[in-house]
Each structure stands twice: as structure tokens, then as C-alpha cells.
């Protein structure tokens, strides 16, 4: 029942919010609903709820043998935890943002949460596709309705891009369906006997969808524009959670199902990932807009996860798993800071800001910790994840180029330090100017949200074991299917 409730809570509340007229009420209801899903998720993970309740399996479409099959294994728990944790933070940290028709805004936000949770829990391919698209539709409306100046062109590009990917995925899933003798069940997909040609075809169909969603270079061109033009709360959803849909897709629906094609094509994708990391890092260094900077840095970070998956080893896969969570909360922290700055000064241009540290010391301290996590300093959570991934890529038996990949990826870590620290220096230190001289420190809601994230960063950085043991089984299983232990 837990999976169904996790989806129904945001779904029903989200739909109901369209009928609520008072803005303040709508916001509070949305926050409450997201907290409720978080509580349910935590209760489910802590073992208060019977383990049998963590799956749900009912017939759906008899004729084509598709089922309402949800389950919460380790990887699903990790990502559902990230989702349910992020939404209250997103809603609370942007509490003071003003939106027209805010009831609809929060309604759509909750609907997207329902879609995302469904993606992470579905064990039926058709159901997975259903939620994959469902997560997209509310986000399209959110970006197009409440976004920046160029929102309409940018979001239609985003939508068509991801829609093409989704349709390719649909074809891939249909091909798997017929291969599996008319079943959409994930477990039936696992042990299919296919020729290498068939496997490659299916691999490419699925990989395109995930590559666009993550995004992987050269399919990334929608991403910076969309992140920039969306309202920041929506950018948070896009980068903290939706980008993980692609990585999750690789780990659940690609690598275990078409392992030999993943192995054969691993080097190609790993190379693209490395190119993308370098490319995004260099561009991030030249950005003057805070949102675009974080957007490009996100491409680089996701690139490392893709690299670790396509040059696999146990340590690398585990690193990618935990880094999905880490990157989610870290980037949430970055966006919260960007949102504060944008709301306060009405600009995101780095060149127009300066000296904020004198006026907003608390914000600065919290941001610096988040930023250090962004560049994977030891003691922060990202260090654990990225170290494991480097370790994994270097030691991977699946690729001959482990060393080259590792060196190239390490360069991007240095570059990320360059652009992140330079951003902090130019925005928070130095002289104040006309715009920033009247600045005040952050309000309580931002302080609390950032504090939660910072606590998470340090906690996981020091004691990552619970998260790692959560996914160890899934990681070992994926590697076993690729014959790489």
C-alpha cells in the first residue's frame, strides 16, 4: 500500500488544489501534503510498516498483460527519499516567492511529484512509461506559465526534445514486450535471450530517452535554457529530481536488461560523458548568469555518474547511486541561494553583485559548505560519491580507458572548483555596490532549509554507510547481470 499512498497523496492533493482559491491556504496544504509523503516514506524505510506493504501488484490491462506493479527496493527507496525530502524543502525555501494563481502552481508541483515517485517505483514497463510522461506534463505547464521571458519557445523545445526520447523508449519497451512473450514485467525483461543485433537496437532506443533526460552531451542543449527560464522552484525539481530519472533509467531499465549491449557500447557513452563534463565545465567558467552556471555544473556532475555507469565496477555503481542522492540535495542548496539572490536583488548577473558576505553572513557560511560539497571536498557527501566513482572507473574491468577517463574527469573537478569558488568570491566577497549595500540576511525559512541540507551534506559525508547499504544489493545485481563482479 505504501507505493500507492505515496502516489495518491500528492496526486489527490495536487488535483484538489485547483479548487482552493486562497493563496496562503494552497501553499500550506501543499507543504503539508509533501511533509505527509515524507513522513510516510520515512515510516516505510524505518521498518514501522510491514515489508509486504512496500509492494503493490494488481492487474491493470488484462488484454495486454500490464499490471499496476510498484515496489520499493533499495534504489527506489533512495530516490523516493530524495523526492519526498526535496519537495517540502523546495516549497518551504521558496515560501516568500509570489506567483499568480499560486493554487495552480502548487497543484502542478504536487502532480509532478506524483509522476516522479511513480517513475521510481514502477516495475511494469508500460506503467513506467506512463509516469515518465506524467512527470513531464505538469513541469511543461509550470515552466511555460510562470517562467522567464523566453519561456514559451524554450519549454516547447524542452518538451519536444524529451517527447522524442520518450517515444523512442516506448518503441524499445514494445520490442521488449514482444521479446518477453507479451509481458511488461521488469522481472520478465531480465533474462531475455536476444541476438546482439536485437539487443543493440533496444539499447539505442532506450538510451536515447535517458540521454536526453539526464542530459548527456550532445543531447543537452535544452537543459541550460530550460533551467534558466523556469521559475527557480521548478528548476529545483528539474535538476534535483528529474535529471535523476535518466540515471535511474540507466540503472533499472537499461544496464540489467540489455547488459551485453551496455557493455559493448559502454566506451562510446563513457566518452560522450567525459566530453560533456569537460565541455560543460569550460562553459560554466564563462557564465555570468548564476542559473546558467549551476545548470552547466549540473551537466558536468551528471556526466560523472554516466561515466561511472558505463565504465562499471561495484564501487563505481555504488558511487553513482549515492551521488544521485547527494547531487540532488547539493544542487537544491545551490538553487536556494540563487533564488534568494534573485528575489532580493532582481538580478542573477554575477557581475552586478558583490560583498554579500558582510551583509548576509549566515547565508554565506551555509552556501560555502554547499559549494564545497559541489566541488567534492572531503568530509562532504559528494566526496564519498565522487571518490567511489573515480575509484570505480579506474578499476573497471569493462573498459580499457579507465585511466584516461579518470584523468579527464579529475580535470573537471578542478574546473568545478575554479568556477564555484570564483562565483563565491565575486558574489559574496569583495566590495559591496549600490545594489548589495542594502542587503539583509536571510529569512528563517531559507535558513532552516539550507541548514537541513548542510546537516545532510556533513552527515552523509562522515557516515555514508546507511545509504550505501541501502543500494548494495541492487548494485551487485546489476554487475552480476553484466558479468562483472
Amino acid at each position, binding site marked *: 500500500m505504501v507505493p500507492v499512498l505515496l502516489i495518491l497523496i500528492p496526486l489527490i492533493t495536487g488535483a484538489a488544489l485547483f479548487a482552493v482559491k486562497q493563496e496562503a491556504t494552497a501553499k500550506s496544504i501543499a507543504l503539508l501534503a509533501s511533509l505527509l509523503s515524507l513522513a510516510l516514506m520515512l515510516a516505510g524505510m524505518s521498518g514501522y510498516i510491514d515489508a509486504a506493504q512496500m509492494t503493490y501488484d494488481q492487474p491493470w490491462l488484462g488484454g495486454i498483460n500490464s499490471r499496476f506493479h510498484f515496489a520499493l527496493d533499495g534504489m527506489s527507496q533512495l530516490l523516493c527519499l530524495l523526492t519526498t525530502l526535496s519537495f517540502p524543502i523546495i516549497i518551504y525555501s521558496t515560501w516568500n516567492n509570489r506567483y499568480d494563481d499560486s493554487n495552480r502552481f502548487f497543484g502542478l508541483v504536487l502532480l509532478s511529484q506524483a509522476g516522479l515517485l511513480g517513475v521510481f517505483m514502477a516495475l511494469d514497463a508500460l506503467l513506467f512509461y506512463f509516469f515518465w510522461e506524467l512527470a513531464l*506534463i505538469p513541469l511543461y505547464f509550470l515552466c511555460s506559465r510562470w517562467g522567464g521571458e523566453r519561456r514559451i519557445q524554450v519549454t516547447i523545445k524542452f518538451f519536444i526534445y524529451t517527447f522524442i526520447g520518450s517515444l523512442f523508449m516506448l518503441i524499445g519497451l514494445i520490442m521488449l514486450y514482444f521479446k518477453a512473450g507479451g509481458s511488461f514485467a521488469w522481472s520478465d525483461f531480465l533474462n531475455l535471450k536476444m541476438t546482439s543485433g536485437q539487443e543493440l537496437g533496444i539499447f539505442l532506443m532506450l538510451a536515447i530517452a535517458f540521454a536526453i533526460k539526464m542530459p548527456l552531451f550532445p543531447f543537452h542543449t535544452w537543459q541550460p535554457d530550460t533551467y534558466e527560464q523556469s521559475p527557480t522552484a521548478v528548476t529545483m525539481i528539474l535538476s534535483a529530481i528529474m535529471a535523476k530519472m535518466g540515471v535511474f533509467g540507466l540503472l533499472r531499465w537499461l544496464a540489467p536488461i540489455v547488459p551485453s549491449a551496455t557493455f559493448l557500447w559502454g566506451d562510446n557513452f563513457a566518452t560522450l560523458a567525459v566530453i560533456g563534463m569537460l565541455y560543460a565545465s569550460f562553459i560554466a567558467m564563462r557564465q555570468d548568469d548564476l542559473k546558467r552556471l549551476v545548470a552547466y555544473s549540473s551537466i558536468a556532475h551528471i556526466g560523472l555518474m554516466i561515466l561511472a555507469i558505463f565504465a562499471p565496477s561495484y564501487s563505481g555503481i555504488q558511487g553513482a547511486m549515492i551521488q544521485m542522492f547527494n547531487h540532488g540535495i547539493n544542487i537544491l542548496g545551490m538553487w536556494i541561494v540563487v533564488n534568494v539572490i534573485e528575489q532580493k536583488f532582481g538580478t542573477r548577473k554575477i557581475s552586478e553583485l558583490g560583498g554579500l558576505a558582510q551583509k548576509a553572513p549566515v547565508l554565506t557560511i551555509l552556501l560555502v559548505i554547499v559549494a564545497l560539497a559541489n566541488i567534492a571536498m572531503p568530509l562532504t557527501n559528494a566526496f564519498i560519491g565522487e571518490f567511489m566513482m573515480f575509484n570505480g572507473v579506474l578499476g573497471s574491468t569493462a573498459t580499457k580507458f579507465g585511466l584516461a577517463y579518470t584523468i579527464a574527469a579529475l580535470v573537471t573537478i578542478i574546473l568545478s572548483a575554479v568556477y564555484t569558488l570564483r562565483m563565491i568570491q565575486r558574489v559574496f566577497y569583495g566590495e559591496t555596490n549600490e545594489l548589495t549595500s542594502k542587503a539583509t540576511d536571510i529569512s528563517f525559512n531559507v535558513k532552516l532549509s539550507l541548514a537541513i541540507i548542510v546537516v545532510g551534506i556533513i552527515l552523509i559525508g562522515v557516515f555514508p554507510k546507511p545509504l550505501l547499504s541501502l543500494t548494495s544489493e541492487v548494485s551487485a545485481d546489476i554487475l552480476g547481470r553484466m558479468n562483472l563482479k
Partner: protein
Amino acid sequence: MNAIILSAILGVILMFSGIFVTSKTAIRNIATAGMALLLLVNIAEQGGFHLFNVNTHNMLVFSKFGLLFNSIAFSATLLFFLVSAKDITNVGINAAEYFALIFFISCGIAIVSSFNSLLLLFLGIEIISIPLYILTGSDKRNLKSNEASLKYFLMGSFSTGIMLLGIALVYGAKASFSMEQMHSSINAGRNAWFYAGLLLVLISMLFKVSAAPFHFWTPDVYDGAPTVFTSFMATIVKAGVFIALVRLFDMSFVGSGYDWQLIIAIVTAATLFIGNITAIFQQSVKRMLAYSSIAQAGFMLFGVFSQNDFSREGIILYTLGYSLATIGIFAVLIKMKDYTFEGFNGLARTEPVLAATTTIFLLSLAGIPLTIGFFAKYFMLASAVKSGSHLWLVIFAILCAAISVYYYFRVIQSMYFKTGLAETEPVTPVFRWLLAGMAAAVIILGIFPNLVLQYLYF
């Protein structure tokens, strides 16, 4: 049989009611009640209850598939009457005749969904076509309507001629009009004349469903005809001809060992390409919908292309989903004062219900999950994947589906994200509720398509 006879009788009744009944409201009510009755007797026949026992000498065969299709077509027509009956009576002074013609078309649809002889196919197609020529030109004082009607009539007559020639050739080769003769495994008489004849019949049918390269009449006719009738033509009538096409293929080409799939694949690709690419450049929503109907016909052609259980389920769902969505959009379009995309600017502010329901219909046409349009496209694509050959067509189709998002979403962008004051004719609350009900049906069937499909098997 129930539906064929009753629809003809109802058509005649409505023609006479034009003389005796002067109130337009009364005519509307008679027509709506008549359509409801027609639907009921057809459902009764699905349950094995026959009103008339006519020996058709095996010229008509009533299969589950055909009867289910009738039910769907009649339900769609009933919905069409409910949301647009007022607009039908507003087209001109002869309100009752328009309804009568629509009943005759329903009769034609019931014939082509169960024909078992080429003669009856021809009869059914003509019974559908001739009333359509009249409906297209029913706005007598409108030059565009006249032009459209004449164009449609001339082109349609040519295609009818081609069909007759084809049937004659087939008869020459097989010495029979019966479909079973054609289907018989004995290849006797399957010679060049036979295939040439079938090809001519195919061309004529492709013309009727506006498949490329026989689509040139469509935009002008759909644009010129009164908008209510465009809605009817683009949905129910087109689906009816599709059923005829599917049945014709099922019983003639299939198993002939002849690579007919390639012909259909090329036609499908061309239809998808032309419909989608041209729709992008339209400025008027009505014309955009005309091209979109060509594009959707491309997807329906998959039902002809693959000929398996998936394609049969698919064409049923496609008919239903496409009709629901298109009738809904046209019902809203009729109420708009300005048919261009700009005319929709800001509709979400002035008429939120109309905008929200139109959005759902458009999402369904684009094939987004949670709407019936998704399952319609899903079954079509799955049928093509299952048939195993011509995978390039599937990939081409999904690229075209992605293109279609662009022009469908342009309407959504206008309604929701652009500022403006869209002007509409006054709208009644009943109309809003009906639209909301149709939108709810689109979503419910989008989650549980089995609600319809189960009737194919039980």
C-alpha cells in the same frame, strides 16, 4: 442489420419532419432521440437481439468488430448531436434535412462496417459520400462552402469511378463480388487483373480517407465546409471509411504473398509527413485541424498496415479517441469568433472550462499518456512492431508524432501563456458540462481502455 434499417427509416422520418415540424428545438430533440435509439438497437444486436431478420444472401456479415465499431460511431454521433446540435440548426434554414443526411451517412457507415461483397462496399461508400457533398455545401450563401462542395463532388465522383472500374476488374478475374471468394486460399483467378482491380479500389478508398498522395481535396473541403460538418466529416465519417479499408484488406491482400505492406508503408509515411509538416505552417486552427486529420489518418493507416489483433484493437480505440477529441475541439472552435491561433489568446482567462477541456483533447490528439489518444497510438505502434517488418516506418511515425506536438501545443500556448481576450459566442452551462464529461471520458478511457476493448472479445 438493426442499425442499417433503422437509420434509413430515421433519415426518412427526419426529412418529413422538416415539413411538419417548424420548431428547431423539436427537430433537434427528435434527431438526438433518434440517434440514441439507433445506438440502443445496435447495442442490442451486439447482445444477440435482432429486430429484423433479412436474408442478405451473405452480402452482409455482422461481426463483433463491425458492431462494436457501429456502437462507437453512433455514440460519437450522439455526442456530436449533444454538443453541436444547436450549431447544426444554425447553418441554414433546412435544419431537419441536415439531420436526415447525417442519419443516411450513419446507414452507410453501418453498411461498410459489415459488407461482405464489393457491391455493398460500393453502395455503402456512396451512401456516405453523397450526403457529405450536400452537407459541405449547406452554407448556401458562403462562396467558400460552395467551392468546397463542388471540389469535393468532382473529385469524389472521379474516385467513385475509379472504384467501380476496380470492382469490375476484380469481378472479371474472380467472377464474384463476394469477399469470401477473394479470401479463399485457392489462388485461382488471382492474376494481374485481380491485383490491378484491387489497387484501383485501394486508391479510391485512400482518397476517401484523405491519405497522401490523394489528400489534396481535404484542406479546402474541411476549411470551406460549415465547421460543424467538418467536425463530423473529419471524425466519424473518416473512421467509417477506415473500417471499410481494414475489412477490405483483411479479406483480400492478406495472405496473397504479395508485398502489399510496402505500398501501405509508403502511403502511411507520405501521409504522416505531409499532414504533420503542413500543419505547422497554418495560421487558422480550423485549417490546422484539417491537416492534423490527415496526419491522424496516417496513424490509422497502421491498422491497415499490420492486420493483427493489436491493429484491430488499435483502430477501435483510435476511432473513439480521435472522434472524442476532435468533436470536442471543433465544438469549442465553433464558439470562437476568430479561428486563428491569435483568436485563442487568453482563452484560459475568459473561459477556463473551455480552455481546460480543449487542452485535454489536444493532449489526447498528441498521444500523451493518461489520455485515450496515448493508447490509440500505443496499439498502432505495437501492432506495427509486432508485424515485424518495416521498422523504419515506426521510427518515422514517432518523429512525426513529436512534430505534431508542436502545432497542437501552439493552441495550448495561446490559451494559457499568451495574453489576450479571446472572444467567444455565449456558452451555456450545459455545454460546459458536456465538454467536461467528454474530457473526463478521454482521461478515464486513457487509464482503463479495457472498458471499450472488452467488447471485442466477449
